[in-house]
């Protein structure tokens, strides 16, 4: 069982992480680097000068081998970690009679995105560098609590069999956003809203693709490793 979980998770996680990091470097990183020009004060927008307007087209620099290489490594690590959690959950579901394969793995992937990316990001939006934000530890605590609540909620929707279970699931999904995430006392972000909005949209988009791939590949490798080890699939 250990071998099957770890092998499936690492293959799926590493492949997903590699693709996700290339998507991030292509679509998210230029927006992040653009924002950093404002974070560092190199560019200042809004009324600081009488003439005002700053060109939306800036040279944000190209590839930085060390920085981007580290990004690739860490993206692969994070999705390998997510892969371990997802495949462990798949193993649990299969023990309880669920069928796991690449196709329904895509549903697992979408649910994973909802749990780990959309749920916390719904109130604690993906942050472009330079935004005003509350204390990082408070935000992290809220992030983990929200992801945990969403994970239980989504599991109860998928595998619960009563209105009580579904009701609890709805509460768990909604509660963190009613309570609210730690927010800054004042808005001091120097980055134009256009960049912040594009950053959040791109972060969500790449996240959805990555989770879809993670679920797809986790389901595929889980089923294949099971066949290789002679484990029987429940019909």
């Amino acid at each position, binding site marked *: 069982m250990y071998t099957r979980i770890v092998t499936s998770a690492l293959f799926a996680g590493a492949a997903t992480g590699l693709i996700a990091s290339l998507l991030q470097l292509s679509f998210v990183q230029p927006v992040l680097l653009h924002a950093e020009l404002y974070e560092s004060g190199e560019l200042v927008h809004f009324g600081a000068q009488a003439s005002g307007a700053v060109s939306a087209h800036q040279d944000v620099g190209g590839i930085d081998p060390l920085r981007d290489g580290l990004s690739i490594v860490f993206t692969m690590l994070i999705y390998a*970690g997510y892969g371990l959690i997802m495949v462990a959950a798949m193993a649990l579901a299969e023990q309880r009679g669920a069928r796991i394969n690449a196709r329904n793995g895509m549903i697992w992937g979408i649910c994973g995105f909802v749990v780990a990316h959309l749920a916390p990001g719904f109130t604690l939006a993906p942050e472009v560098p330079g935004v005003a934000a509350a204390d990082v530890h408070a935000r992290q605590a809220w992030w983990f609590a929200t992801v945990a609540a969403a994970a239980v909620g989504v599991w109860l929707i998928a595998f619960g069999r009563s209105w009580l279970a579904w009701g609890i699931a709805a509460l768990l999904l909604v509660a963190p956003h009613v309570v609210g995430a730690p927010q800054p006392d004042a808005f001091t972000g120097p980055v134009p809203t256009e960049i912040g909005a594009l950053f959040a949209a791109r972060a969500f988009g790449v996240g959805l693709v990555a989770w879809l791939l993670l679920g797809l590949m986790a389901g595929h490798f889980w089923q294949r490793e099971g066949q290789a080890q002679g484990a029987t699939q429940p019909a």
Partner: protein
Amino acid sequence: MNTQSTALAGSKSGLLPIIVCALIGLGVVFVAGHVQAGALHDAAHDVRHATGFPCH
């Protein structure tokens, strides 16, 4: 012999491997995505922002 058969039975259907693997996964996500130690934070900075984690 006894240990071996126990280990085999445990590895066939037990909850233990599932819990252990999920915890390792959680640990990896925590270290790579959330620990604030300087060098780790700098190395993972761009990824943390792009993945929607609270960063700094």
